[in-house]
């Protein structure tokens, strides 16, 4: 493996990459339409609306209808991007996602915007830290949590190329672009090893990936070689990379999600039944108190320092110390 991937300077809002890529694809592919719930601005689809007003369907504040309408559009050969705040899209319309999208296996692309705790002070009704648990159970549904603008753009392209339901869990939290090696490729179901290491493995996705890289750097200074894995694809999931990580015997997962049922849960299901290893799952333990997104991440230890601590703990657990 080449030099470890690092965080590039500068911060980005991944919604920009989402909207830009979608517009570029829509120019060449007339099947692409957008469906929104009074969320043109928050999905950054103002440009799309301006260029193709007839291809943007705003159903108003009505998420269940929005997802059902998306399934109907797919039935007519369209490729709908159903885009709204992740909390309402997944929470309010869960049964539509289950029956009309996943079970019916329709070609609907769900774009959950401002997932995790990006809405900060607006509170738990607006946080989307349950969505991976809810959606991970649904057969047929591909789930991706991109880490940066490049991966967001690649995931949008892959979603269009893929025939079938996809959930893109997007954030509005500022993240750096990762400096990837030349020729890096994005593929559904494939995890990315961003940094080599055999002492422990840190598995992250979304906005947490950059924190995992910082933590690994700090651990290296303390003589601990931690592998860093970007598990952006939650479904399908890369068993091979996860089981290889289990060979270190010490795994820390971190996600902007509940500690139950998300990335950590998915990894634990595979590791505990195949190649048990010491594990720590970092995430939110329950409904968050009032505070900004940054405050909440600090408050719950979802920081590079928190990861470093957890890596020391799993190594101690593995070594029986």
């Amino acid at each position, binding site marked *: 493996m080449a030099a470890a991937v690092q965080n590039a300077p500068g911060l980005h809002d991944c919604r920009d990459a989402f909207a830009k890529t979608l517009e570029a694809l829509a120019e060449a592919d007339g099947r692409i339409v957008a469906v929104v719930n*009074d*969320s*043109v*601005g*928050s999905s950054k689809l103002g440009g799309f609306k301006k260029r193709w007003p007839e291809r943007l369907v*705003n*159903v*108003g*504040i*009505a998420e*269940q*209808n929005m997802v059902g309408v998306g399934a109907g559009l797919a039935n007519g050969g369209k490729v709908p991007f159903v885009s709204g705040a992740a*909390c*309402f899209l997944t*929470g*309010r319309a869960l049964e539509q996602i289950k029956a009309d999208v996943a079970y019916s296996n329709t070609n609907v692309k769900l774009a959950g915007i401002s997932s995790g705790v990006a*809405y900060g*002070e*607006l*509170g738990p*009704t*607006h946080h989307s830290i349950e969505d991976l648990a809810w959606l991970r159970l649904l057969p047929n549904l591909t789930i991706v949590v991109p880490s940066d603008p490049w991966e967001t753009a690649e995931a949008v392209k892959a979603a269009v190329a893929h025939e079938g339901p996809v959930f893109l869990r997007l954030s509005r939290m500022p993240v750096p672009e990762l400096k990837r090696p030349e020729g890096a490729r994005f593929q559904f179901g494939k995890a990315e090893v961003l940094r080599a290491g055999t002492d422990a493995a840190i598995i992250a996705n979304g906005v947490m990936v950059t924190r995992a890289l910082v933590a690994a750097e700090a651990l290296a200074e303390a003589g601990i070689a931690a592998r860093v894995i970007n598990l952006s694809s939650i479904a399908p999931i890369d068993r091979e990379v996860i089981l290889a990580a289990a060979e270190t015997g010490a795994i820390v997962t971190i996600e902007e999600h509940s500690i139950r049922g998300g990335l950590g849960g998915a990894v634990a299901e595979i590791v505990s039944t195949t190649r048990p290893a010491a594990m720590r799952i970092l995430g939110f333990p329950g409904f968050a*108190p*009032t*505070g*900004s997104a940054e*405050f909440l991440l600090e*408050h719950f230890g979802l920081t590079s320092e928190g990861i470093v601590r957890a890596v020391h703990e799993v190594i101690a657990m593995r070594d029986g110390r």
Partner: protein
Amino acid sequence: MLEKISQTSDERIAAIREKARIIRRRAIQMVFDAKQGHPGGDMSVTDILATLYFGVLRYDPAQPDDPARDRFVLSKGHCTGALYATLAEAGFIPLDELATYMRPLSMLNGHPNRNYVPGVETNTGPLGHGMPVAVGMAIAGQIDGSDRRVFVVTGDGEQQEGSNWEAGMIAGHRHLAQLTLIIDRNHLQQGARTDETNDLEPLADKWRAFGWHVVDVDGHDHAALLDVLGAPVGDRVKPLCVIAHTHKGNGISYMVDQVQWHHGVPNQEQYELAMEELA
């Protein structure tokens, strides 16, 4: 509450108007300090809140759980600037608590949480939740044979959520006369006008068709609001739908009817102008 009975009607209305002015100022202060919030909707709903809390609702802030209290649900839960300022004025929360609005670990979250804020009946924030819960409250009262009343305020954009209509249908069916729905009809939602997004009209006819008694009122006229909301249920058997015609940003010249003030935050100059206009 009872002091009002000795007041003349003009005095009562003047008192409500003064409460509304105080609530508007406090809400703007809170949004300005927190650097976020929903001032457009706060200003739109303030006169409705002031009329309800200082002219209509029966409550005792010392006993927020009193089973006989009237119930109020702000279904458009994003308008906590106005709601918390009202609850403070009504004695449910200490005035100085307002300065913690949306600060780390504050009880005053961006959307109301009944587990921390006395006077809040149910947690709102996702639109379209208030009506079903209010219907349940009214059915509980019906089962108990209680005369307590239930008031719920929704936004007009919020009316696009199907849950309102599911709840409205059963309320009409069950003749929930103790239930009043107030629609804050300001013609704007988050990103555009309601009629550009998903038109609601004919709104009154729709609620009539669902078995409701519908009344239109100027949602910034305290006397008119008091007339409609304060009227006893009497022998009315249908639930009451009040379409309150309002303006987003009402009371602040540059905010009135401007969609960007849905969640805009005033800068220093705009803040000063707002305070001047609300003086």
